[in-house]
């Protein structure tokens, strides 16, 4: 059996002849970017053997080899993941409470006793909120007596090692074995994070009694070990509805700890959005508010005097820097800010202050937005020949915009951005139509999510992801999946309240809208 050595990771594996490098990496838990799920089309899993480059998903191991991966070991440290978000003020009334009877401490969940602990432990009562994102996990420990967040940590969702995007992951988990694998790696990661965090906070994991799982619907299926297959097939039905409790036996917390799952709105609008609605108190606002979580799936909620409608659109992975020639995640080396000054000179900012090695989502939107604003990219999305600027040069006979000598934006990249922003914009248009609202009637646009936080209003308007009528009304509210999850943890009344809110939301499936194609095509231009 040939042996493969991953030099940077210092890991070795013997494999059967013909195993791909990607398969070996997955067995060793080494993360390689695979947005095309090993189809050999995206080129992101590039590795080096000797002086030659190969795609890990296409390279079969037939002899002993030593492989060099792009160094990702620091990715968890440098990746920009936002853990805090706008939140609502709430009265402290957690589901979990404790009472010392002079001898032992009884732990209550609501009105029923969950278990007892010897001695007086009533001062030590903690809960956890977890935002299970497709790409990232955020875990925070909350003191249930004070309502304060003590510590938090974020890292990449280890499930991405097996399948990167939501649909590939649903596909992977469509059989029992795959589902087990994905559930277990998630639980291992959560336990590890809970372990380090409680050490850091100097508390015992035994005193953690409840975990709130915020996340998109597919991730929650996987976390709870529920078959996600129906999510990936029309009519896209969720198998769980949230507003329910699970035992937390696999998690490293109190033996009688529980997991609370907030209400789920639909197959593609999950508990993370319910948490967002709670954090933003959308159901109580008198104004008209559009709440959007921009990511691979653009989930959005439109609130008009407390009445809510929700939908999601398939934006694809372009905003995460995938499917883009020089695209990358928001880690060290990524161009994250870009602008063209009045004298035509350019300014840009690179994460970590290092040499630019790629462009992340916020950088992509800035670059495209600025080129559109300057008329270098025309309304139809093509590099025009009327105007020119330093950096606009030919590469392999095609016009390309160079940010640096190695980092550039191609015509095809612009097309991918058009498809992604067109999807979000057409979702917005469809929701407005459904609620009979004009664009100028929207008072406020709240952009949630860790990715959204790094965007700026000007770029969103320049590329037409948002219509011009929204100018000056955009606020970035951060990771409301996390802050809303904390609100669920701290006040049990929100649980019944949000169950009602979620059931009354008008759910809109864009695929069933006959005019969707027209709206989508009209939303592609700049």
């Amino acid at each position, binding site marked *: 059996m040939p042996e493969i050595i991953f030099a940077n990771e210092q890991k070795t594996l013997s494999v059967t002849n013909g195993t791909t490098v990607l398969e070996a990496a997955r067995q060793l838990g080494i993360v390689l970017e695979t947005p095309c799920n090993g189809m050999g089309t995206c080129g992101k899993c590039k590795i080096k053997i000797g002086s030659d480059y190969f795609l890990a998903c296409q390279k079969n191991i037939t002899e002993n080899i030593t492989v060099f991966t792009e160094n990702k070991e620091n990715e968890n440290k440098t990746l920009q993941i936002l853990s805090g978000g706008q939140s609502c003020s709430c009265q402290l009334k957690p589901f979990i409470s404790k009472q010392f009877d002079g001898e032992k401490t009884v732990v209550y969940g609501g009105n029923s006793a969950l278990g007892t602990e010897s001695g007086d432990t009533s001062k030590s009562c903690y809960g956890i909120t977890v935002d299970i994102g497709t790409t990232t996990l955020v875990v925070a420990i909350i003191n249930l007596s004070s309502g304060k967040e003590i510590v938090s940590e974020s890292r990449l969702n280890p499930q991405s090692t097996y399948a990167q995007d939501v649909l590939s992951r649903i596909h992977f988990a469509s059989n029992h074995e795959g589902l087990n694998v994905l559930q277990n790696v998630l639980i291992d990661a959560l336990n590890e994070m809970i372990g380090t965090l409680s050490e850091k906070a100097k508390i015992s994991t035994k005193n953690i009694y409840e975990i709130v799982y915020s996340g998109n619907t597919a991730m929650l299926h996987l976390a709870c070990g529920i078959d996600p297959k129906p999510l990936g097939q029309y009519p896209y039905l969720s198998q769980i509805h949230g507003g329910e409790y699970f035992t937390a036996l696999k998690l490293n917390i109190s033996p009688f700890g529980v997991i609370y799952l907030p209400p789920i709105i639909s197959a593609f609008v999950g508990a993370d959005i319910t948490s967002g609605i709670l954090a933003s108190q959308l159901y109580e606002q008198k104004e008209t508010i559009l709440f959007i979580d921009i990511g691979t799936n653009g989930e959005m909620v439109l609130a008009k005097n407390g009445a809510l409608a929700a939908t999601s659109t398939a934006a694809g992975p372009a905003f995460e820097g995938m499917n883009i020639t020089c695209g990358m995640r928001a880690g060290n080396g990524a161009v994250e800010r870009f602008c063209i000054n009045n004298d035509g000179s350019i300014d840009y900012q690179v994460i970590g202050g290092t040499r630019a090695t790629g462009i992340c989502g916020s950088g992509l939107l800035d670059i495209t937005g600025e080129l559109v604003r300057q008329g270098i990219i025309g309304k139809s999305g*093509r590099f025009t020949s009327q105007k020119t600027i330093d950096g606009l040069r030919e590469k392999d006979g095609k016009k390309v915009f160079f940010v640096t000598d190695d980092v550039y934006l191609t015509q095809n990249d612009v097309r991918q951005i058009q498809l992604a922003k067109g999807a979000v914009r057409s979702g917005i248009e469809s929701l407005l139509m459904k609620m009979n609202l004009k664009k100028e009637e929207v008072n406020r646009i709240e952009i949630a999510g860790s990715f959204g936080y790094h965007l700026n209003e000007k770029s969103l308007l320049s590329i037409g992801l948002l219509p011009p009528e929204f100018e000056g009304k955009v606020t970035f509210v951060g990771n409301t999946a996390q802050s809303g999850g904390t609100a669920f943890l701290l006040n049990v009344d929100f649980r019944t309240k949000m169950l009602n809110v979620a059931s009354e939301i008008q759910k809109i499936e864009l695929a069933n809208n006959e005019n969707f194609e027209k709206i989508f095509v009209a939303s*592609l231009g700049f």
Partner: protein
Amino acid sequence: MGKTKDELYSEMSDAVVNMEEELSAQLSNEAVESGYDAFEAIDLGLAKGMEQAGRLFDDGEYFVPELLMCADALNAGVEILKPYIKTERQEKKHKIVIGVIAGDTHDIGKNLVKLMLSSAGFDVIDLGRDVPPSVFVERAVQENAKIIMISSLMTTTMDGMADVINILNEKGIRNEFKVAIGGGPVSRRFADQIGADGYSSNANQAIKMANELVGR
């Protein structure tokens, strides 16, 4: 007006490339009034324009909206010329059944491919979306189609494409049809894996592929 036939055809072609619907209709009327052969006017005029639009799409110059507008201009002309096509000039078109595989309702890509194939002279029968594998086969047999084209945008539904091929094999009619696939998550490699005859990554390439599959 002193315009030669070639000049008129070339103007018709330009009208399609430039997305000028009214001009395309007007020039098509001119062709009818001048007594030119309607089939020829489509073939050497309008359709040439659509071919050029397809090339611009490949080069990244045109995108989906432009392609749709070019098709509108093409169809405006075809509507006018169609009634004048002499029956003996109506060559037998190759038939294609096309649809989105079961479980999937994303059909914008499929619609674009359908449009391009129709403009390139194929007789395209649209089975719609969320189409069960067995229906692809039944309809292909019924229509005596040459090609079965299957689209998917969701990784979770791609296995259904292989099922179409399996059914053809089981029925012993695999050789009677060419099977071609496409869509966001689909790749050449996947096409090879399931034994499909053709794969195309975009709507314009689909024409070239279809032509090759029917030996045109």
